């Protein structure tokens, strides 16, 4: 029996060609291809052309080791049929993990949630710390882009409480000092100046310290943390948590210069720094220039400045009647802070309709739970004074009208003006960047809205030594974005120090491991919890409303954390399909609880999506398309949209053509 180059895998004959040792890094140990036949004689005939093509591939790789041959193969006419999904592209399975894909820092969410359900809080914390730097802070304050993306919003109702589970990792972790990366004693001699001690700068410093670069941090305030300290009130983020996570990074060896505001970029550039990172945020609150503004100056406060003065304990009281202007998160923080500083009648007044307020849903809910009324569609017209003192404000009622392009305009309704009495007004209608300290003739180009021109990939400005990140780069965003920016900027700065190409970005690290333990044993929990989202317990209002330092949310206890963690669908446990093992028994198609799996004739993407058992109409979600199957020439098409990752397809598969494999995707960092 001549079986040279041939081997049998589950009744099907395959060809295997060994790869020369020098090329194994690129091609692996050997190259294999299925002959798609059960018949040995046929396989003996078919093998030669396949062997030839595999050898050709080896030869091509030998000649041009960097050229990507895959492209030619996948570039088949997409008009007539959908090409086989390339699951070796790290982004394919990454995208299936909706939460991680939506997170700017790409934190491996299901991975740390599994650790929580096993009680490994420290491990769960470190997964977070590596990726988003401030798990304790973010677990209380993150804008949670992961949660609306959560698969549960499509299969059940409410997403997993990812953010509050992140908090759990901080609350229950052990000492982590010994787990932190080591900072080398021997320095590289490269010096980086960081301006502003907010999350972006701290992330950059953390990443670069580990490589032995020196980091010198300039901050105008007496303590680090940036907006995390100045703009987020203590009842949402206790000072101890903030100090803990900020100091952790500073203690890694940052040289700090607190209370030193940089007033001239030009003179900083003249100092002995190899690069400068600007992480100054968007520190200027917008003002409202209407009638009476000047006269009532003493009782009108800019929201973020007022919050800052509370944080540094310069302010500890406010009038009895307070109006808060604005509908963003700052406005929500202002109104709730007012209550705690002694105000008795606090109103939030918004120009826009209620459902278009910029604040996060849960921030609005918290304010409303503290019985703070929100008035929508009221445009401020003037400040009213009596004997030189602010006594109220006049508003015009409007309604929102949208034109054909969806552009909103606020049209007065013609009703009588509305007057609200007040002692103090907090203006929280937006934030701006402030770059008056950067001279415009030193090589840093400024563009629209007086913002610096920053490269979206490298975070470098038009001055090669100057990098931007966080809110300073493209305007106000959230802390998690600042952390994401920081990692990327750190990569660029290190490359800049080493005279490397800044556009040559490192690849993510990926790993995929089968979860099959035995015939019916899986090393992950695949029971789908039908529990509703658990609510985070709150402190009693009789206590929390009296003291601005009492944290309102108490966090999950370990039991609630476990139950909430069980709601995670394990989207990172991927359904991996091997077409050459499939015998087309249709068992997976029959068992799939959400009808994701189809065996169907291939066609172009649009037709294919419509021809599935249940049409795949969510275009944000990909289709997993297999190669043609031996027996019927159909293809397997799986709609990733509402797959529960329950593993029943793999459990009911007689040949192991389906397997459940955990996919770990880690975004590249500089170390």
């Amino acid at each position, binding site marked *: 029996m001549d079986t040279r180059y041939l081997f049998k895998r589950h009744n099907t004959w395959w060809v295997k060609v060994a790869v020369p040792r020098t090329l194994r890094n690129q091609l692996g140990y050997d190259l294999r291809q299925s002959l798609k036949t059960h018949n040995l004689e046929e396989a003996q005939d078919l093998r030669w052309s396949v062997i030839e093509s595999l050898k050709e591939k080896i030869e091509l790789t030998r000649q041009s080791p960097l050229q990507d041959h895959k492209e030619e193969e996948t570039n088949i006419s997409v008009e007539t049929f959908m090409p086989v999904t390339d699951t070796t592209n790290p982004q394919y399975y990454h995208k299936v993990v909706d939460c991680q894909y939506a997170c700017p820092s790409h934190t491996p969410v299901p991975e740390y949630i599994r650790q929580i359900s096993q009680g490994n809080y420290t491990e769960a914390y470190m997964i977070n710390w590596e990726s988003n730097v401030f798990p304790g802070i973010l677990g209380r304050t993150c804008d949670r882009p992961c949660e609306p993306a959560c698969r549960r919003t499509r299969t059940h109702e409410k997403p997993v409480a990812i953010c509050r589970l992140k908090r759990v990792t901080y609350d229950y972790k052990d000492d982590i000092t010994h787990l932190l990366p080591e900072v080398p004693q021997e320095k590289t001699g490269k010096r980086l100046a960081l301006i502003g001690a907010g999350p972006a700068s701290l992330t950059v410093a953390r990443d670069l310290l580990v490589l032995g670069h020196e980091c010198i941090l300039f901050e105008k305030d007496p303590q680090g943390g940036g907006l995390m300290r100045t703009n987020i009130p203590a009842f949402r983020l206790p000072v101890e948590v903030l100090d803990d996570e900020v100091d952790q990074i500073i203690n890694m060896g940052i040289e700090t210069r607190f209370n030193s505001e940089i007033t001239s970029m030009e003179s900083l550039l003249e100092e002995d720094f190899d690069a400068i990172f600007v992480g100054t945020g968007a520190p200027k609150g917008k003002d409202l220039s209407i009638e009476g503004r000047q006269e009532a100056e003493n009782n009108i406060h800019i929201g973020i400045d007022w919050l800052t003065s509370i944080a540094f304990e310069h302010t500890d009281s406010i009038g009895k009647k307070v109006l808060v202007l604005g509908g963003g998160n700052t406005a929500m923080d202002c109104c709730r802070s007012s209550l705690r500083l002694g105000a008795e009648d606090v109103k939030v007044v918004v120009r826009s309709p209620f459902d278009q307020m910029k604040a996060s849903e849960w921030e609005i809910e918290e304010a409303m739970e503290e019985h703070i009324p929100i008035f929508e569609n009221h445009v401020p017209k003037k400040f009213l004074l009596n004997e030189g003192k602010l006594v109220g404000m006049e508003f015009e009622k409007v309604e929102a009208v949208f034109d054909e392009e969806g552009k909103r305009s606020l049209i007065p309704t013609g009703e009588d003006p509305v007057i609200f009495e007040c002692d103090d007004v907090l203006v929280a209608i937006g934030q701006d960047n402030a770059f008056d300290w950067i001279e415009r003739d030193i090589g840093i180009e400024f563009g629209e809205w007086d913002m610096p021109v920053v490269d979206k990939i490298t975070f470098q400005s038009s001055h090669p030594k100057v990098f931007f990140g966080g809110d300073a780069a493209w305007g106000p965003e959230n802390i998690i974005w600042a952390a994401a920016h920081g990692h990327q900027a750190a990569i660029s700065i290190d490359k800049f120090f080493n005279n490397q190409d800044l556009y040559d970005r490192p690849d993510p690290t990926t790993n995929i491991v089968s979860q099959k333990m035995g015939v*019916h044993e899986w090393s992950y929990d695949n029971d789908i919890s039908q529990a509703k989202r658990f609510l985070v317990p709150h402190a009693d209002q009789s206590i929390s409303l009296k003291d601005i330092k009492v944290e309102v949310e108490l966090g999950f206890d370990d039991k609630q954390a476990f139950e909430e963690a069980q709601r995670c669908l394990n989207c990172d446990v991927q359904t991996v399909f091997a077409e050459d093992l499939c015998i087309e028994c249709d068992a997976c198609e029959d068992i799939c609880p959400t009808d994701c799996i189809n065996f169907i004739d291939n066609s172009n993407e649009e037709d294919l999506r419509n021809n599935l058992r*249940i049409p795949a109409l969510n275009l944000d979600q990909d289709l997993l398309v297999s190669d043609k199957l031996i027996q019927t020439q159909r293809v397997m098409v799986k709609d990733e949209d509402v797959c529960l990752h329950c593993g029943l397809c793999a459990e009911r598969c007689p*040949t192991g053509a389906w397997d459940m494999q955990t996919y770990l995707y880690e975004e590249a960092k500089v170390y």
Partner: protein
Amino acid sequence: MTYIVKPKNHHPDLEKNELGLTRRDYEGSISSLCAGCGHDSISAAILEACFELNISAHNVAKLSGIGCSSKAPAYFLNQSHGFNSVHGRMPSVATGANLANHEMLYLGISGDGDTASIGIGQFVHAARRQLNVVYVVENNGTYGLTKGQFSATNDLESKSKYGEDNLFPSIDLAAMAIQLGASFVARSFSGDKEQLVPLLKAAMKHKGFSFLDIISPCVTFNNHGTSTKSYDYIREHNESVSKPDFVPLGKEITTSYEEGQSVQVPLHDGSLISLEKLSKDFDPSNKASSLAKINKAEEEGKVLTGLLYINTESKDLKETLNVVDKPLNQLSEKDLCPGAEKLQAINKDLC
């Protein structure tokens, strides 16, 4: 055996039928058959057919004997009645149930052992009497439950998984059913739902003995290289006589066929089974033509599938025996004891 609990969640866009039910509402318990068993695909096809026909599960009785196939009724239509009888005795139970209440849909699920061996006598007479039942044989050619011995439908040339020769020729249950007088005879394949589901729907609407011989590969014992009932063998040797399409009452036929290319057979409730002819020399209403076609396919080494024979004129058992229309459990005392006057009249007739 599957240990994962099937999640209750279904696709948010899952279709509902006229009863407001989804396909998932017709499910049964999770299957304990081997992974990849053809029987599970047949179960899926049955629940698909019931869903599409808007059948209320409480109007269905699932009857079976013994064997892997006879476990299958537990895996579909959880809300239906069921009777798991003695080996090979499903037709007797079905006959009794049918005579007591002929308003229900009877699904008899049997296997090649249950029907072609121990229960062949029962099968023969149920067919001969035109018992109004959908009689499904989940035919895998092997005794899976007892570790893979040959069954009576295993083809002569088909060896066992361990290489043993089969000593006896096989019984063709479909041909036998035609000869016995069954009025609806089809053969299909568990791996071809496009054919199987319309056939099942037509069988459910047909009045009389509806027989379906469904080849259902046994992944554990009879899906190897020398088997003639494996997934790949059937797919390679399948010859379909026609492409069936079930057209419910009041719906128009939307597919257009070339002239002479299709036949429409009206079923008892006015629905149609439309057959797109794939074979010219074949007439499914003619016994001789059907048997000849089956024989020819056998000679050519083909597995003939599709609707092989249909006769919509024949009487079913209830009509032949002139059984009362109402189900027995709905007969009142008045129906059962018509009174002294009637009795006298009857007695007078006997004089």
